[in-house]
C-alpha cells in the first residue's frame, strides 16, 4: 500500500531531482469520525435526586456563629458551598458527630425511665457497669489507639487501684471521695512500673509482658489472705451513696454517677487525643517511629506521658469502682474480663471514643442483660467480635469509610470494564468532571488516536529516521503534529549530557519546579538519533493505548 510523496519544497532546488519518499495511501482524517456513531458501552442515566432539604446560604444576612465557651470550637461546623450542578449556595454540616453525641447523652439520661419494670434492676446494674467500663475503655483507648502501646494491663490497674483503695479505706477509714484519689496514686505508681519496659519493648512482646503482670496480680490477690483469698475479694470500702436510699434509688444514682465518670473520661479522651499530645502521637504510629523522630517528634516522651496520664485516670476509676461496688474482686484480673474488654474496643473500633462507648454498651448489654442466655451469650460476643475482625477494618464506626472505599473500588472496577482505555468518558465520569471541555477533549483525542494509529507504517518510520526534522509527508506530519501537541505531563524530551556527543530521553514533569525524569539508559550520539528514538517511543505508546 505504499505510495510516494513528493516534497513540495523540491521546486526550490531545481538542479536536484525532486525528493520522493515512500509513504502511505491517503486516508481521510474524518474516517474515524464517520465510523463512530454510537458509544460501545451501554450508557445509563446518571443524576442523584435531591431527596432531603439543603439549607441555602446566608447570602447578605449576617451569620453569627457561636462557640463552645471558652474554646475556639464552633457549636456545629457548618460549611458553605456552591452546588456544582446549580451554583446555588448551600450549607452543609461538615461534622455531624456533635449531633449524635447529644442524642446519645439524652438517651443515656432518659434510659432509666424507659426500661420495663421487670428488667429494671438488671438493666440498671448493667448500666452502671457500662458507665465504669466505658470510662476505663476510653482511657485504655488512649493507650492502645492514640499512643499505639499494646498494653493489656489496664484492668489490672483498675484491680490494683480498687484493691489498694479498699485496703487503705479499711485500714484508715478514709471517706469515699478519697478512694478515687488513692486509686489515682496507685494507678500512677503502677503506670510508672509498666511504662518502663514499654520504652524498650513493643508490639507483641509488650502485650505478653503486660499479660504476665495481669496474671501475677490475679495469682497474688487469690493467694493473699490480706486481699481476701478466703472471701473471694476484698470488701468494706465506703460507698458514695447515702445509706438511707432505697435500693431503686441506689441503682438510679449509681447509674448516673457512673455516667458522670464516663463523661469525665470522655473529656480526658478529647483533651489528650484531640490536642497536641494526640497529634504528636498520630504522627508516630507503630513502624513509622523513625520517620517521626527524624521530623523532630519526641514520640517516646509523648507515649509515656499518655501512658502515665491514662494509668492515673484508670487508677482513679478503680477507686470509684471500689466505692461503687464496696470493694474489689479478683475477677478484675481474670482473663475473661480482659477478653471481654478487648471485645468492647474491637467491636467499636480502635482509636475512636464513640467506638469505645458503643462497644462497651453492646458487650455489657449481652453480658449483663441477656443473662438468661447463659453461656451462649459469650458465644454471641465471640461471634460478633469474630465477624468484626473478619469483615470490618475499623470496627462498627469504620463501616462508613469502609463502605465508601468499597463502593469506590467497585465503581472503578465496573467503569474499567465498561469504558475503553483512553476512550470517551462515561456519563458517570462526565458528571464528576467540572470542566466539560475535558469531556470533549477525550472524544477528540480518541478519534485522533484511532486515526493516526492507522498511519503508522514502516514507510513512515523510515521517513522519520532518514529526516527527523523538516518537511514531512502528510501522514508523518499528522503523526508528529499529534505527538507534539500533547500535554506537558510525561511528554518526552531529550536531555543533552554532552553537547553534540551524548543525548538521552527524559519525560517532562509538567509541574513547575519538578525536574524531568529519565526514562531509559540508552545514550544517543547525535540529536537526530535521539529525535528518532523519541519518535519510536511515542509510536509505541500510541499503539499500546
Amino acid at each position, binding site marked *: 500500500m505504499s505510495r510516494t510523496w513528493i516534497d*513540495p*519544497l523540491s*521546486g*526550490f*532546488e531545481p538542479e536536484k531531482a525532486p525528493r520522493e519518499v515512500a509513504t502511505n495511501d491517503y486516508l481521510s482524517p474524518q474516517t474515524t469520525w464517520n465510523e463512530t456513531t454510537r458509544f460501545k458501552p451501554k450508557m445509563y442515566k446518571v443524576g442523584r435526586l435531591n431527596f432531603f432539604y439543603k439549607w441555602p*446560604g*446566608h*447570602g*447578605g*444576612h*449576617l*451569620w*453569627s*456563629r*457561636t*462557640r463552645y465557651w*471558652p*474554646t*475556639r470550637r*464552633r457549636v456545629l461546623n457548618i*460549611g*458553605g458551598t*456552591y452546588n456544582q450542578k446549580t*451554583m446555588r*449556595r448551600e*450549607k452543609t454540616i461538615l461534622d455531624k458527630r456533635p449531633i449524635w453525641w447529644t442524642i446519645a447523652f439524652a438517651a443515656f439520661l432518659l434510659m432509666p425511665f424507659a426500661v420495663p419494670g421487670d428488667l429494671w434492676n438488671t438493666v440498671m446494674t448493667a448500666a452502671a457497669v457500662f458507665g465504669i467500663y466505658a470510662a476505663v475503655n476510653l482511657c485504655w483507648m488512649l493507650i492502645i489507639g492514640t499512643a499505639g502501646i499494646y498494653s493489656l494491663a489496664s484492668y489490672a490497674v483498675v484491680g490494683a487501684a480498687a484493691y489498694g483503695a479498699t485496703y487503705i479505706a479499711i485500714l484508715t477509714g478514709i471517706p469515699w471521695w478519697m478512694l478515687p484519689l488513692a486509686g489515682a496514686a496507685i494507678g500512677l505508681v503502677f503506670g510508672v512500673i509498666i511504662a518502663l519496659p514499654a520504652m524498650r519493648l513493643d508490639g507483641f512482646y509488650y502485650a505478653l509482658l503486660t499479660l504476665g503482670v495481669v496474671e501475677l496480680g490475679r495469682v497474688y490477690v487469690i493467694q493473699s489472705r490480706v486481699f481476701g483469698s478466703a472471701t473471694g475479694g476484698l470488701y468494706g470500702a465506703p460507698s458514695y451513696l447515702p445509706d438511707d436510699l432505697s435500693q431503686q434509688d441506689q441503682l438510679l444514682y449509681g447509674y448516673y454517677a457512673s455516667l458522670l465518670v464516663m463523661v469525665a473520661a470522655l473529656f480526658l479522651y478529647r483533651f489528650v487525643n484531640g490536642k497536641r499530645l494526640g497529634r504528636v502521637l498520630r504522627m508516630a504510629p507503630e513502624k513509622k517511629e523513625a520517620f517521626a523522630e527524624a521530623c523532630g517528634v519526641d514520640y517516646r516522651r509523648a507515649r509515656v506521658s499518655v501512658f502515665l496520664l491514662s494509668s492515673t485516670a484508670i487508677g482513679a476509676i478503680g477507686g470509684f469502682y471500689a466505692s461503687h461496688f464496696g470493694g474489689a474482686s479478683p475477677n478484675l484480673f481474670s482473663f475473661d474480663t480482659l477478653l471481654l474488654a478487648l471485645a468492647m474496643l474491637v467491636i467499636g473500633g480502635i482509636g475512636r471514643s464513640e467506638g469505645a462507648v458503643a462497644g462497651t454498651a453492646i458487650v455489657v448489654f449481652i453480658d449483663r442483660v441477656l443473662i438468661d442466655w447463659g453461656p451462649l451469650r459469650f458465644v454471641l460476643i465471640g461471634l460478633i467480635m469474630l465477624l468484626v475482625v473478619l469483615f470490618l477494618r475499623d470496627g462498627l464506626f469504620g463501616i462508613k469509610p469502609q463502605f465508601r472505599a468499597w463502593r469506590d473500588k467497585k465503581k472503578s472496577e465496573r467503569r474499567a470494564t465498561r469504558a475503553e482505555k483512553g476512550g470517551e468518558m462515561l456519563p458517570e465520569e462526565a458528571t464528576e468532571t467540572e470542566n466539560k471541555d475535558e469531556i470533549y477533549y477525550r472524544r477528540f483525542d480518541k478519534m485522533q488516536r484511532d486515526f493516526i494509529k492507522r498511519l503508522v507504517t514502516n514507510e513512515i518510520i523510515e521517513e522519520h529516521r532518514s529526516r*527527523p*526534522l*523538516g*518537511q514531512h509527508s502528510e501522514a508523518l*506530519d499528522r503523526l*508528529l*503534529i499529534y*505527538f*507534539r*501537541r*500533547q*500535554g*506537558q505531563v510525561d*511528554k*518526552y*524530551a*531529550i*536531555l*543533552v*549530557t554532552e*553537547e*553534540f556527543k551524548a*543525548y538521552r530521553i527524559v519525560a*517532562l*514533569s509538567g509541574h*513547575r*519546579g*519538578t*525536574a*524531568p525524569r529519565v526514562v531509559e539508559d540508552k545514550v544517543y550520539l547525535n*540529536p537526530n538519533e*535521539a*529525535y528518532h528514538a*523519541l519518535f519510536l517511543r511515542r509510536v509505541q505508546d500510541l499503539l499500546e493505548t
Partner: protein
Amino acid sequence: MAELKIFGYANKISVKPGDAITFHVNADGTSTAQAQLVRLIHGDTHPAGPGYKEEEILSPLNGAWDVRKQFTQVGSYCTVEDPEGRLAVDGSFSLCAFVYPNHPGDGLRQCLLGRWDAFGNRGYGLWLNPAGLLEFGYGNGQEVDYIDGEVPLLKQHWYFVAATYDAKTGVATLYQESAANRYNSRLGKVAGIDYRSHVRETLRFKPVNPPEVPFLLAGAQDFHTLRGTFVTQGLNGKLDRPSVYDRVLTREDLDAYRKSGQGPADGIVAFWDTSSGYTAEGIGDTVVDIGPHRLHAVGYNRPVRAQTGFNWNGKSHSFQVAPHEFGGIEFHDDAIIDCNWAVTRSWTVPELRSGAYGIRLRIGDGTGIREEYIVFFVRARQPKAPIAFLVPTASYLAYANEHLSFDAEIMQPLAGQSPILSELDIEMYQTESFGLSLYDTHSDGAGCCYSSYRRPILNMRPKARMSSMGVTWQLPADLSVIAWLEHAGYDYEVLTDEDLHLEGLDALKPYRLVLTGTHPEYVSEAMLDATEDYVEQGGRLIYMGGNGYYWNIGMRTDEPWCVEVRKLNSGMRAWQARPGEYHMATNGQKSGIWKDLGRPPQKLTGVGFISEGFDSARPFRRMPDSWHRRVDWMFEGIEGEMLGDFGLAHEAAGGLEIDRYDLALGTPPHSLIVASSGGHSDNYVTVTEEVLYPYPGLSGSHDYRIRADMVFFTAPNDGAVFSTGSIAFGQSLPFNNFDNNIAKLLSNIVNSFQSQKKVPGWSWTLEEKQIR
C-alpha cells in the same frame, strides 16, 4: 554536602572603563570559586563552526573568590514604613480591600494585608486561606484565633472584603461582597452566583502587636534560622484601595466604601489610594496613603501597577485617561526583580577593549551548573571605532530564563521538534528564585510582564542553547557576529540597548556603522527613535536579524535593569494582557507590537516579521534586483546565486524568525530586495498580525510571503540600511571558519558602510532605458 552549584549576576550590564560594577554570587556546597575574567568571542559549540572561543584577561579579579549561599526573596508585595507603630492598632480596628484573586484556594495561604508574624503567631491579618475562604485572624504569640467566610472567593472576580474587630467585646465580623460589573470580572450576571458572605463570631483573646512585626500588603513576615526574616504568604492577584481603620466600620460604612471606593473619613489609620500618584510618564513603586499619617507603601519585586481596578467599566483603556479606574495593583508570589544578594566582589572597570565580557566562575569539575559566566558589556570610554555592535540586551532580558520547553504546550508544535534540555535548563526550571521571562506566565496564570538582569540568567551566557529549538539564541547567537567581526579584524566597539535607551542618539552618533544583534525584538520608544534619527542623519545600519523592532517595551531611567512589556491582541505572543491593561506602568505608553502603534519595523529596516519556524532553515537566492549596480558590489567575489546554504542554525542562513519587505507597512519605496530565502517548510506559518482570517495555506509551502528578504536602501545624508531579514543569518557566518559567501557578503557591505565614502553605486539612479 550539598550539590555543587554556582550562580551569579552583576549589578550592571553595560559599563565603561572607570565605572564601578559589583558581582553577586551564590554558591552551594563550597566556599571558594575560581574566577577568571574573559572576553567572550564565540559562543556556539556547534561542530560546523569554529567552536567555543574566549580570551582570558589578566585581572586582579582572577583567582579564588570567597562565595557563599545567598537567599532570595521571591514574590511581590508592599512594605510600609511605620516607625511610630500606628498600624499596630491596639483597640478596635477594621481592615478593608478590594481584591481580585488570581488563584484562590488550592492549599495556598495568601495574605491580603496585615501585620502578621507567621513564625511567632503574632499580629493580625486578613487572608485568603488555603481553602480560598476570606479569613481574619490574629495571634498573641502562642495561639491564633480566627474567623473565616462562608463561601470561598472565586478566581478572577472583584470582591470587596473587610474584617472589623471590636476590642471591647471581641466580636469580629467579616464582610465579603462582589464588586463585579459587566466588564471587570470573569463571570457575568447570568451565572447567577451569590458571592456574599457576612459572618460574625466572638473571638477569645486580644491580639498582640509587637513593634518589630512589619505591616505588609500582600504578604506576611516569616523567619528561618539561616536566613533571618523574610516574606511569605504572598498574594496572587490584584488589590485595590486597601485601608486600615481604628474603629469598627458598620455595614453601611462598608457598603458605601464598596460602591464608591472611598471609605468613611473618620477613623482612617491608613488608606492606600492605589490609583493616586499616577503621572503622564508612568507609575513608580510608591502606593500613596491619603490618610492623615501618610504611611506610603512601597512595592518590592515590582507589583504590577496600572491594572484595571474594581470600578473599571470598559470605557477607558489607559490610566492616564481615568486613573481612578486603574487602582488595581497586582501581586505574584513568584515575581522576582532583584535578588538583592550581598556583594561578592566590587570592581572598577580598567581600560579594556570594548566587547562582551564575563566573569567565569568554576567550582568542582567546572561544567554544567558548576560553571557560571556573569556577562556584562564594556563600552569604549571615548568611541573611536567606526563600527558599533548594538547588543540587544532588552531582548536578552525578554528571554531570560524562559520556561517554554517545560511549561508551554504549544512549544513543540511551534518549534517542530522535541526540546533538547541541558543540566542548566533543568536547574533553571527547578529554581523559583531565578524568575521568569516575558514568555512565561506566573504560577497563577497571569503573564509575566517584567524581566530584569539583577538575577542569574542561565541562558544569557556563552555555550547556552535554546532548548526548544536546538540552536543558540540571543547572546550566544550574537557572539557569532562578534566572532566574525573579531575574525575579520574589524575595528568595532559594543554598546547595549540600555545605553541607547538612556543616551538616545548620542550613543550611536559617533559610529559610522551600527550592526544590530540577531534578534533585537524588544525596543523602547527612545531606542527606536534614536535608531531612526541615526539613520536619518546619515548613519548606516545593518539589521543583522529577524523579528526585530517588534515589541514596545518600557524601561525606567533610574532602574534600567528591568524591562516591561504588555502582550496584547496581536503579534506572536506568549500571553495576553487582560482587557484594559494594555498600557505600561513604566511609561504609560500602550505596549504591544510597534506595528500596531503605527511604527512597523519596515519603516526603519525595510523588512518586518512574517513567519517563524524552527525545524529547518533555507538558503537565500539572489533576486534579479541584485544585479543593479546600486547593490551588485555586495556580491563581489561571490560565485553563484545561492547564499548561505550552510550554517550553525539548521544548516542555512534563512530561518528561525524571518522578515519580509512590505511597501504597505512602510518599507521605503526605493528599497531593493537583494536576495530572498524560499521553500520554507510548513512549520513556518504566517504571523498572527498579518492574518485577518486564518485559512488553510498560511504556511511555508503555500504562502509566498513566507521568506526572508535581504533588503537594501539608501538613507538621507549618505546613510544606508541593509537588512538580513533572518535570525539564522548570523549563525551562518562562522561556518567553515568564517570562509563562506554569507561572511563574504557581509564584509563587502561592512567594508563600504564603515567608510566615510558614499555607498558604492550611489549614482546609478536614472530610469532604465536599455534596449535589452
